[in-house]
């Protein structure tokens, strides 16, 4: 589904990703771990097409298409979803109105019929239960005045409604209590199927207890420096990142 080859990318002229290679097949859940500042968010944003993150060389193929050639909204319509590390507030824009516009833009692009207000509400109610968000949230402005945890749950709610093929979660777990963590994990688990792939970016191993990944990768200094199964996450939890960095230095 997703093939990243030798990707270099930067922000404001500063090189962050330095030759990242990663293969994600349909049906797989990959966890990407790494110390702060290692380039995890950069990877997520480059994949989603955020303008200030500029790829300089390498390639990303998504479902056979050159992903980097598409503008952000087209990637979204093709099924790429990014749950953001810092969800954005949009004052005065109704949460449910926003999501309906998004879903219909995606559906239209995929040649499906747009949902009318009633159909959409039905779908939204169903997914709201999944993330245990109160209906009152739907009539508030997008993320405005939401607590940190509510914002993250709103991201998962949007993901559940949009049903993306490739979901990227950028530290959706940070700052969450155990309950919220479980809700987020359930949201992702509900999405799991042969048709979906998930890239979970996280700093801690906590989330991965509820959300068992098929593969774990360590990102350091702009590259994947180690890959393994779910046991790698546990190892990282015990030993921290230092040992990997030491390994790296030793290898130089």
């Amino acid at each position, binding site marked *: 589904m997703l093939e990243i080859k030798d990707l270099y990318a930067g922000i404001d002229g500063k090189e962050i990703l330095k030759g990242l290679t990663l293969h994600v097949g349909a049906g797989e859940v990959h966890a990407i771990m790494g110390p702060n500042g290692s380039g995890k968010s950069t990877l997520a944003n480059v994949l989603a097409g955020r303008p200030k993150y500029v790829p300089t060389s390498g390639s990303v193929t998504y479902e056979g298409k050159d992903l980097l050639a598409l*503008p952000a909204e087209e990637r979204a319509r093709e099924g790429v979803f990014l749950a953001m590390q810092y969800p954005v507030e*949009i004052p005065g824009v109704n949460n449910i109105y926003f999501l309906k516009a998004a879903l219909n833009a995606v559906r239209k692009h995929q040649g499906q019929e747009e949902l009318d207000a009633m159909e959409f509400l039905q779908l939204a109610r169903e997914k709201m239960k999944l993330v245990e968000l109160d209906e009152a949230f739907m009539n508030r402005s997008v993320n405005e005045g939401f607590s940190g945890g509510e914002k993250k749950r709103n991201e998962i709610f949007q993901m559940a409604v949009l049903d993306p093929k490739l979901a990227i979660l950028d530290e959706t777990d940070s700052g969450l209590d155990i309950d919220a963590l479980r809700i987020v994990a359930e949201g992702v688990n509900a999405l799991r199927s042969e048709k979906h792939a998930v890239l979970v970016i996280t700093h801690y191993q906590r989330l991965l207890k509820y959300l068992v990944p098929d593969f774990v990768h360590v990102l350091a200094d702009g590259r994947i420096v180690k890959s393994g199964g779910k046991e790698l996450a546990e190892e990282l939890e015990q030993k921290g990142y230092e040992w990997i960095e030491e390994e790296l230095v030793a290898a130089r």
Partner: protein
Amino acid sequence: MSSTIEQIASQEYKYGFITDIEADQAPPGLNEDIIRLISAKKNEPEWMLEFRLKAFRHWLTMKEPTWANIKYGPIDYQATSYYSAPKQKKKLNSLDEVDPELRATFAKLGISLEEQKRLSGVAVDAVFDSVSVATTFRTELAKVGVIFCSFSDAVQNHPELVQKYLGSVVPYTDNFFATLNSAVFTDGSFCYIPKGVRCPMELSTYFRINSANTGQFERTLIVADEGATVSYLEGCTAPMRDENQLHAAVVELVALDNASIKYSTVQNWYPGDKEGRGGIYNFVTKRGKAFKNAKLSWTQVETGSAITWKYPSCILQGDNSIGEFYSVALTNHRQQADTGTKMIHLGKNTRSTIVSKGISAGRGQQTYRGEVKIMKSAEGARNYSQCDSLLLGDKCGAHTFPYIEVRNSTAKMEHEASTSKIGEDQLFYCQQRGISAEDAVSMIVNGFCREVFKELPMEFAVEATKLLGVSLEGAVG
């Protein structure tokens, strides 16, 4: 607007107004003879001519104001013709003859084909018996005694009302442009709601029977008698072109004891091309006077004109009277707007609310200028002001000048102001969910304006939302 309204509107245009004035035009220039000519052509009573002449003589002693934060070349007041008989626009045979750019705009605003024809002066088929609808409309109003007609008609048929209230809120000496208007106004609307009557429908200039093309110097007078209530809609969202660059209208509202007037405007005069050439200069004086327990509410959405100079104001004279001002002003390309309000508190326990939303894009320049005056007599007066500016891009500007004058220590004043930019992060957030940049901007801007839009009558609100989207086109790359 509903198709019924469109139909009536198109019909109105087709038949024009009933008039005995021969088609002719006064020579350019402004002097007493021209004013006498205007008055004579309109067959006005002596007092009306006197009003015009007094205004003109006063105008000669006045200087054009220069305090506003707007720039434009000198206006030659002697080069304009101040009277031309109402004439039909040149009729086109089909919409194919209309400027394609204008048609594209119509389409985006969702304006029906019939309405498009009306606005661009294409001859329309009589598919609808408009006369009967117009008559029904008039009968409805007449049943409750509401008078709604052109200003000229009012001068002829209701001289006692016009004479009593004309200039009672905006005196002919008021300001350069209002004084000019008082001397040379050609037509406009008049509306009177009798005691205790709640006007059964929203009054729209669309419906104003027997008038069209009120032109450059429009005059509106609305009187709500004791306990009466009315909602009045002015303007339309379709881009309005006019040969005359200078527009100087005057609107006076009189809300007698316990009366309530809600005045909503969508202004979309031609803003000029991307360099600002050819746009309308809109210098408007709008003011209302509220007597005891009365309420005045101004809501405006200003997206058009090259230059806007406009401060709808409230004189809160009666005890417990209320004034409101809700405004969205948008400037794109090279548009300039200096707009705001004045709330003058005279009565006890008077309250006023100001919510102003300014949006600047392109090289647009926008100034909010508000004045809240609490006079000595205004025990317990309260004001809440909120002025927010939203910037799109870095070549535009927003400026805020709130003036506050408090002469009574019991007054409670609250003022909030903010300036924000549509951030890359907001835009990306929308796009990441599949929403196009254009739709995202329009969504964010409409969200920003929500507090004002919710004050608009429903139909107007929907149109205003679309209008902002269209007006912002090209504002993001």
